[in-house]
Structures are given as C-alpha cells and as structure tokens.
C-alpha cells in the first residue's frame, strides 16, 4: 500500500510537471464539448439560394416567402441567367438556384402545373437533403391559400406545380462521393503535420540536433532537406486515395487531375509549415503529437468534411475559413465532382497560400540555429 501510494504520488508530480500534457488532457475534452455541442449541426438551415425570376406574377413571391419561412433557404441574390446560377453553384457561393420560368403565374392559374426548377449543389447530400425534403410540403402549404375559390380543384390532383429538383454533381446522393475526396485533405493534414513535427523533435529528443547545429548548415538546408521526403510521401497518399476513389468507390472525376496535384502541393506545404511550427514549440515527440491532435480536431470537425459547413454558427464558420483543410476539401470536391477549373478554385487557393505563408513565417522565426 505504501508503495502504491508512492507510485501514485510520483505520477501526480510528473503529471503536474508536464504542463502541456496536462493542458491537453483538459483542453481536448473542452474543445470537443464546444465543437460537438455548439458548432456541429447535422440539419443545416439558412442555406444560401439564388433566384432566377422570369415571371413577375404573385405566385412567385408566395413561393419565395414560403421557402424563406421554411428556414432552410436564404434567398441571397437574384441572377439573370441559368449560366450565372450554375457558376454560383460551381463556386459554392450558393447551395441552390431556384428558377421560376416564364408564364409561371399564367400556367398556374390555368391549372397547367407549371414547372418550378430547383438546382442544388448536392456534393454533400447531408447539407441539401433536409432542405430538399422540406421543399414540396412548404410549397404546397403556401399555395393552399392561393387555391381558394375557382382554383380549388387544382389542389386535388398531383399538386398545383411540377416541382423539379436537380441534385447537381451527386444526383444519387452517394455519401462517399463526398467523403472520399474530402478524406484526401484529412489524411494529408494528419500525416503531414505529425511527421514533420516528429521528425524535428526527434532530432532534439535524441540529442542529434546539437550535432546537426554544430555543422555548417543553413536552416533552409536543414528544413527543406527534412521536408521534401514528406512531400513525396504526401503525394503517395494523394495517389493512393485517388486510385481508391476511382477504382473502389467509382467517384466521378470531372476536373483536371494535374490541377488537383498542384493544389495538393500548396496544401501539403501549408501543413508542413504547421508541423515545423509545432516542432519548434514542442519539447519532445509526445508534445508534438498532442499539438497535432489539437490542430487536427477542429480541422476535422469545422472544415465541412464530416459535418455540413453551412450548418455551423458564424463563429465556427469563421474558424473554419482560416483552416486550410476547409478550403482544400472544397477544392478537391470542386475539381473531382464539379469539374471546376482554376478560375473556380482560385478563391479557395489563396486562403491556403496565405495560411502557408504565415505558418512558414512563424516557423522560420521560431526555428533556432542555436541551442538558446
């Protein structure tokens, strides 16, 4: 019993000394509580929608207010053509384009069941599923009021309008079309940060850093020499995931793979820079791993990889927008599923580049050429 108590006391003393581990043990549950409790919402509302109105009749306005009232749709902009709507969808600016065709009111009153066209960016079926599901109920309820008197007979049939939903990019709502491309970013984030963090702290932990620093090397030679092998490893991972996506999961690949590989380079560099920064702070390999996890968790949860980005509150989206994974997930999905070109993904590339530059700057600032 005395020895047990001695052991216990020793463990508590060591736990208290290892501040970072202690902070992580408290910090990670807190982080999880906040993220899962407040940020994640599997039933996203207020999804941005664009409208294309070719008919000025009153029924159109009724439909719009019905959509707004459903809580799922925020009509954020008006577009002039279908092409403009498609472009917004491709760039992920809006989740839906609602198209009210010409003569909608006239046909409605005549009982010709006019078509209402809803185009959805369905890359992530989880984001659009509920919004689409609520569509026909919301519209029919709204139109009940207009179907009084002489129009009452219309309500009885198939419904007064012909609702056509086009689930673009992933029409069959296959979840792994969305998950597998996103996974590429997740895997790169975890391994790239972890291996660089470990590679440099390992030198310090084993005492070989002192030897390395006593040699006439420049920091850039040491760092670049250390990182290039991992960039190659990163590309092996990208290739493996692409092959699996193609041959195991039949994920469609509409865009340019070359563009994807170039974007991946930027993303890998951003993550390596984070890894180096961590390694300049961490005292040993364990701490580097803990820091990696601390960064990885919000990346996983707030990037829109696992949960609908638009379902999160604004503060969580703001954090998500800073993280490179958020943008890379959009890039990969955009290139593979939407066939996006450089023009459409550029708005997602510069945030990654900015992040990489800042992280690299901190890493270079903190990297010591001496043992001070």
């Amino acid at each position, binding site marked *: 019993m005395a020895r047990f108590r001695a052991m216990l006391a020793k463990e508590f003393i060591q736990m208290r000394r290892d501040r970072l581990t202690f902070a992580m043990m408290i910090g990670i549950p807190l982080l999880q509580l906040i993220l899962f409790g407040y940020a994640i919402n599997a039933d996203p509302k207020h999804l941005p929608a664009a409208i294309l109105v070719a008919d000025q009749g009153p029924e159109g306005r009724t439909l719009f207010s019905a959509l707004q009232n459903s809580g799922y749709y925020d009509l954020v902009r008006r577009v002039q053509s279908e092409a403009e709507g498609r472009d917004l969808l491709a760039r992920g600016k809006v989740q839906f384009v609602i198209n009210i065709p010409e003569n909608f009111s006239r046909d409605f009153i005549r009982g010709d069941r006019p078509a209402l066209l809803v185009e959805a960016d369905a890359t992530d079926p989880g984001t659009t599923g509920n919004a689409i599901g609520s569509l026909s109920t919301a519209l029919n309820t709204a139109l009940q009021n207009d179907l009084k008197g002489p129009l009452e007979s219309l309500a009885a049939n198939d419904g007064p309008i012909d609702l056509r939903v086009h689930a673009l990019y992933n029409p069959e709502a296959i979840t792994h079309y969305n998950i597998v491309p996103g996974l590429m970013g997740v895997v790169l984030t975890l391994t790239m940060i972890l291996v660089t963090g470990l590679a440099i702290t390992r030198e310090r932990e*084993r*005492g*070989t850093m*002192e*030897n390395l*620093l*006593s*040699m*006439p*090397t420049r920091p850039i030679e040491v760092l670049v020499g250390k990182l290039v092998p991992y960039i190659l490893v990163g590309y092996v991972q990208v290739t493996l995931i692409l092959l699996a996506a193609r041959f195991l999961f039949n994920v469609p690949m509409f865009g340019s793979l070359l563009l994807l590989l170039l974007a991946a380079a930027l993303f890998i560099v951003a993550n390596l820079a984070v890894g180096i920064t961590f390694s300049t702070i961490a005292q040993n390999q364990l701490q580097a791993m803990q820091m990696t996890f601390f960064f990885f968790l919000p990346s996983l949860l707030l990037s829109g990889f696992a949960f609908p980005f638009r379902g999160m509150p604004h503060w969580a989206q703001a954090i998500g927008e800073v993280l490179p994974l958020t943008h890379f997930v959009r890039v990969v999905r955009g290139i593979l599923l939407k066939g996006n070109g450089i023009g459409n993904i550029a708005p997602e590339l510069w945030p990654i580049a900015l992040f990489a530059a800042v992280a690299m700057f901190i890493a270079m600032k903190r990297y010591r050429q*001496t*043992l*001070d």
Partner: protein
Amino acid sequence: MNGEPIIDVRGMTKRFGDRTVVDHVDLTVRAGEIFGFLGPNGSGKTTFLRMLCGLLRADDGSGTCLGHDVITESEAIKREVGYMTQRFSFWEDLSIAENLDFVARMYDVKNRRQTVRKSLEQLGLAGRKDQLAGQLSGGWKQRLALAACLIHKPKLLLLDEPTAGVDPKARRDFWDEIHHLAGEGLTVLITTHYMDEAERCHRLAYIAYGKLLTHGAVDEVIGNERLTTWSVSGQDLAKLTEQLRARPGVEQTVAFGNMLHVSGGDAAALEQGIAPFRTDQYEWRQVESGLEDVFIHLMDKSKDNSLS
C-alpha cells in the same frame, strides 16, 4: 608551446535567465596544444564549448577562434571545428558508414568516398560498416564519434567529456590517439572530470560556478595554489577526519583509499593544526599536493566566495 593562438577569447559570458552560467571567462589556447578544461558538473564547461562553436550565442565577450570572430563568424568557425558532444549524438538508426558519409557531405569533404573508406579503416570498423550505430558499445560509439568529428580535417577539436562511461583501456587508447593528433598539429580543447586525464594535458584550466579559477601547465597550477599537503594513514581515519576538520590551519581533508590527504594554504598553521595527532597511532608524511587536492581546494574557496 608557443604556437599561434587558436582560441583567444576575453570576457565570454552566458546567462540563462538571471543565472550566469559562464562568467567573463578569458582563455587562450595555442596551436598544437591539448588543453584540459576541468571543473565540477554544472560549472559551465559545456556552455563555454557551445559558445565557441556557435551553438549558443554569447551574451558578452569577444575574441577569435581559428582567426574568426567568435561572436559574428560562427559559420566559418563551424567549418574548421570538430565538436564532439557529451552525449552520443550521431544517428543511431544510420549505419556506421552512413553516419560518416552524412557528416562528410555536410562538410563538403573532397574525395568523399575515399575519405570515408579511409576513416572506416583507421577506425578498424571497415568490416562492420553496415552495422547500425545504435548497436555499438559505449567505447565504439565514442570512437565513431571521434572519427566523424575528424572527417573534415578540422583544425580544432572540441571534446566534451569524451571519455565519460568508457572503460580504462579504451580511455587510454583514446588519449594516445589525441596525443597523436596533437603531434600532427591539431589543437584540442577537452573537458574532463578525471585527474589522470588532466595530467595528460599540456595545459589546463579549472572552472567553477562559471568562473575561471586557474590555468596553466599542471605544475604551474599546483604551484600557484601554494598548498601544503600531508598524507596520513592508520586506524579509524573517519574519526580522525572529523577531529582534524575542527582544527585551525586544516582547510581540507580528502580520503584516498587507506590514506587521508590533509591540506592547508598556510604550511606553519597546518603543521600546528595536525601536531596533536602525530602519534604512533598514525603514520604522517608530507607529500606534494596533487591536482585533485588543488582543485578541491579551489572549488571550496570559490564556493565560500560565491556564498559570501
């Protein structure tokens, strides 16, 4: 030794927070010299070596190392220095040959393959060159480290307790090698705890609590201290030690196996101090003070100074 100064520094100072680890140390080491750097643990020896080769930034001080400014030209110094760390710091998951090759590449060694092969042969490790460095015993690791430090033909070797944890035979071989290298003109600055090693140095310096207390050749260091030492043997020396320590004139007692060294700075006072114990029970003999007596004396003195 009257060679040109290889290390010539003044006022070297390093602080970690408010702790001064190296406190205005002046040191001159000449070409071809084996210079021993002695001092207790934590006295600042390693920190001083690290400042010399640019691993730590000095907070104060100036001077040259191999003709380069010790503060601003550490890149140039690194190229011509071989620094052997206290703890084995080569890559245990690389083989012996891979370690040597890596170091040779880092220093841009000409005729690299040939140099590495020659180094392996000299080491006597040619047959085991593909063995991982981590599998070597302490003695062999030390030899590998020395070979790696020499591969770029440095002009100055900084060795930080190179023989700690190495068996006596390997230690002797190591010192023979060091003397051989010095004979070829290499300058060596070596830190050690061992007195027998200190005596193998051409000159030495003693550092404690960050301050350089004395330096010179062995006999100069001993002579400067003007310490008188008596050796005594007999029964129950432990009791005698306690009694002697209470006596005026007795400044230190150091046990050497079955003997006790009793020393003091004032020869007359010491003789008076021990007089009551010079009975048949003990055998007394005045001896020359050794390095160890002198260093312990120096350390006690500086401890008194740093406390007062």
